[in-house]
């Protein structure tokens, strides 16, 4: 096939270029040594704005849950994986559990000289009939000191989160009135009966902490419950007569300070092998077991106040 190519076509062929090079008319780079200025970099404001808008649009689209099929699917997948994850964890822990020492038996690492001494000498060394109370308030009192401060810290954070300013407070109070049960007769009557009993029971638990089941925390919680019931029955107006934020602050302060100082004394004397002046008393008597009783009282006060404070805070952000 000898079809004649047109000149233009021919000029595009490599044969033509080769020939041009052969005859010295063209060179690969000679023509390219020609220069022109490069374009300067120009920041494009419009493009930036457009990008930003697109970004927003994408965000809107992505987070539009009701209309987004893939997001819905993702949720389903998420749930499924959650269950799988849970099952996996369970399997792992079950295997672990199966290797643990058998439950309920005596010969276990747990039942070692530590527990032995607590049981055998606890009464003698702490003066508390309730071995557990003796343990947490004397043998391992540092933990308990920390524990009460956990509670304290939590209260502080709740205060930070929920306590309102003066101006907001008034508004909240108005709002709160709507939810408050107004002079419900049944409630008030029952409360009149129950609250003293509850509080007395709480006090009993606290005071009996070193002698039997109970202690500062449980007793304090009971008292707190009583206070909350009272508040619900009679409203803030009544409670504010005897319990305000200031009361709470000082009660907490004194209780905790006492706790701190008392325990510090005991720690200090213990660590420096000094003799503690606090008498142990007769085991079983109400005034016995050294510091445990006062500490229980202090903890009880703190817990009672805290429980009440939590409730008040949750409800309207102030006392």
């Amino acid at each position, binding site marked *: 096939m000898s079809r004649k190519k047109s000149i233009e076509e021919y000029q595009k062929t490599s044969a033509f270029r080769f020939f041009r090079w052969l005859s010295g008319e063209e060179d690969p*780079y000679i023509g390219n*040594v020609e*220069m*022109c*200025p*490069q374009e300067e*970099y120009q*920041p494009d404001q419009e493009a930036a704005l457009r990008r930003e808008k697109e970004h927003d649009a994408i965000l809107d689209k992505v987070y539009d849950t009701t209309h987004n099929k893939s997001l819905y699917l993702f949720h389903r997948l998420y749930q499924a994986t959650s269950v799988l994850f849970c099952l996996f964890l369970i399997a792992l822990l079950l295997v672990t559990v199966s290797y643990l020492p058998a439950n309920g038996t005596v010969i276990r690492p747990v039942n070692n000289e530590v527990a032995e001494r607590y049981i055998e000498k606890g009464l003698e060394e702490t003066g508390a009939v309730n071995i557990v109370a003796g343990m947490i308030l004397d043998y391992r009192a540092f933990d308990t000191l920390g524990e009460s401060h956990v509670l304290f810290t939590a209260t502080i954070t709740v205060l930070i989160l929920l306590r309102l300013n003066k101006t907001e407070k008034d508004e909240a109070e108005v709002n709160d009135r709507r939810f408050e049960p107004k002079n419900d007769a049944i409630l008030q009557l029952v409360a009149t009966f129950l609250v003293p009993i509850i509080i007395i029971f709480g006090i009993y638990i606290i005071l009996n902490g070193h002698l039997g089941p109970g202690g500062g925390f449980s007793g304090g919680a009971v008292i707190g419950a009583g206070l909350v019931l009272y508040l619900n029955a009679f409203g803030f107006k009544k409670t504010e007569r005897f319990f305000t934020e200031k009361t709470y602050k000082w009660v907490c302060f004194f209780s905790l300070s006492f706790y701190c100082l008392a325990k510090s004394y005991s720690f200090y004397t213990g660590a420096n092998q000094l003799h503690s002046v606090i008498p142990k008393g007769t085991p079983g008597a109400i005034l016995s077991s050294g510091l445990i009783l006062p500490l229980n009282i202090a903890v009880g006060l703190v817990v009672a106040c805290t429980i009440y404070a939590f409730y008040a805070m949750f409800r309207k952000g102030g006392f």
Partner: protein
Amino acid sequence: MIVSVILIPFITGILVPVIPFRKRWQKEVFLETAVVLNSILVWYLLLHHSDSTFLLAHFTGNLNISFRVDGMSMVFAGLVSALWPFATLYAFEYMTKEENENVFFLFYTLTYGVTLGIALAANLLTMYFFYELLTLVTVPLVMHTLTREAVLASRKYLYYSLGGAAFAFLGLIMVIVYGSTTDFILGGVLDPAKTAGKNNVLLLIYVMAFLGFGVKAAVCPFNSWLPQAGVAPTPVTALLHAVAVVKSGAFAIIRLTYYSFGTDFLQGTWAQDVVMAVVMFTIVYGCSRAVKETHLKRRLAYSTISNLSYILFGAVIMTPLGLVGALTHLVFHAIMKISSFFCAGAVMHQTDRHYVHELNGLGYKMPRVFGIFTISALALMGVPGLAGFISKWNLAGAAVESGNPLAWGGIACLLVSALLTAVYMLTIVVRAFFPGKDFDYSTVSDIRDPNWKMLLPLFVFTVCIVLFGVYSQPIVDFFMSVAAGAV
């Protein structure tokens, strides 16, 4: 003494913005005096050096900051201190058009000290320290104009340099752990007892460290900061990005290769092949980019990239002769490139033209500048009788002598690069002197050669180029003795 030469520039630099100079010339005299004085001190130090190590401070463990004058440091410190006064002189004139002079001179002078610190460092850690410092003190110089371009450039410069240092750091670690000491000892400090069986890892780390230091020396994948950094004022581009900074990279690589890892350890390994291949590629790549580039300073920057790899090529031959070649090119290229950069700067300063195509016909109006430019161009191409030839001769000689076929390929790269050098340098010359028939001379009518502050350095450098080209025996002999460890 050895510390004072590093400290004097620091103090001077800090004093510049502090002292309230009433007139400009006072500041100039102050700076120039300090710099010249320091250079004289450096030379005195180099000529009367003792072999003792000056311990400045313990750092941690057995690492310390200490200084020593040995052959390599004599070469580099001598070079830097010889060039600096001239560059400063040139900068005075150049900076009349720029703002924020004080800040500029502050960092400019600081850089002097830091560069000397690199040169005089006695161990790898000290060098690394000053190496990082160098990045930091030069960034403000790149950023000087505070235009968007400058900021982008300085950012890139920082990323690259610091990133490179991060990998160079690995090399440092290797030397600390596997070496008997971190001090520089010709032939390497690796302890064979410790390295046994770990050769490949060490080589890998060497390659990484090479590339790390290579960032400053603009080895190929990491070179793009250098042309961009050309936005800095010309004295900076010329002195730092043609000499001080980039040569520090090359210097560091030489230290790493010859004085830390040791050529015995590296020679003939795959690591050598890899780094040599990288270097060879850079040689060609830099030139090709330079040919394509139309911005005058960026073109020179690409040229620098290629030429730096000449030095590295010499270094990675890993023979004493290779070191000689590298050192020769280290010194000669510095002079040639600074001279061509200063010409470019003079053009920009006098005419405000930045692109190659704008240079038409300037040769008639600035005959001195372009005459000198031509000489430096010829020297860069490697025309015999000028300095560039000698260094290339030494490099190629070393490559041939090494008997390494890859190195022979490297010679081919050198020559291709020389050709491309001719392309990108001589087109400028041709444009300047042969602007074309229909060139309108009125466009260049009010342009003239710059004043003596700019010309003096140029003339001095040109004389050096020719002198070294014709009579390089003593200096090459000196390099020989350095490479042999006799100094």
